[in-house]
């Protein structure tokens, strides 16, 4: 099964990531601590066919694009 929780390193911080699953769409909820609200991101399908990381709800796209690849790296290192 997908790991319920794991950690990634971002700007020197260890961030907890929770895995959520909804109708086979995998979401990740990243916990930043008390001052910054958690971020939920998922991979979405661009109209031209490629996938991209996006925040849900909208508005934190920059952060989604930075954190998403770190999660991909985690998967590459631990599940391939």
């Amino acid at each position: 099964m997908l790991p319920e929780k794991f950690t990634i390193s971002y700007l020197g911080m260890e961030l907890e990531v929770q895995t959520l699953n909804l109708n086979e769409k995998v979401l990740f909820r990243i916990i930043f601590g008390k001052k910054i609200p958690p971020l939920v991101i998922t991979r979405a399908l661009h109209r031209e066919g490629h996938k991209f990381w996006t925040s849900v709800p909208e508005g934190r796209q920059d952060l989604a694009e930075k954190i998403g690849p770190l999660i991909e790296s985690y998967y590459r290192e631990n599940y391939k």
Partner: protein
Amino acid sequence: MCYYNGQLVTRAEYIRLKQIEKLLSSYDFLKTPLQIGFDYGKNAILKRIEGAEDFDIVPMEWGFIPQYLKTREEVDKMRHGYKDASGRFHPPITTLNAKREELLLPGKIFRDAALKRRCLTLSSGFYEWRHVYPRNKKTGELLKTAIKYPHRIHLPGREYFFMASIWQPWTDRQTGEYVESFAIVTAAANKLMEQVHNSKKRMPCILPEDLAYEWLFGDLSEQRIREIATYQYPYKEMKAYPVRKDFQTYLDPTEPYIYEDLPELALS
């Protein structure tokens, strides 16, 4: 043309992301980890708003909890099996699915829900294991142990589809915990699913939109409930393809995977 976070997406993808937004904002259940499949996790269910031709998308626990169970401990015992005081093992009873043939049987746990609490499970695809028996390389005889190949089944061109389901309110008499649980209605497999889910030859009752609407909102006779629950989605409008054996721990569980030793499905 739709944009999400400034990225150009299809209408279907836009709707999906908006649905996720709604669920995230409305329900605490998504704030705890969920898993795919047979672990009695929560799923998104279309539940009728009482007295209206409208519905909510609500989280429900997959695995119908019968009213006769009094506590969560009893539920866990039913689902996972247990040993009684004399050491006798009582095997698990699975209520993830409600067999179409048993839906309305008098005295059975599903009857009341089938009559009064029908709902729809929202799905974009599901998984079944195809059992293939290899041959002994020397004798050519079929071996007794099957190799199991997971397949993803979906409806090409349809981002989401509906599975006929029934739901049940339940309260733990010890703790007061209130739970809504559900079971997916299953029926005999169609030509595609006979080959994919070839160990049991069953499939979920997938409904086209008009029947899904009727299942959710209709004031249905027992005869009509049976008819709808018997509906067999056309196999030509479904597609199955193999996925990795570890798809449940894979970042994209829907990604196709090629097994060189896996025979093609015979659908012509």
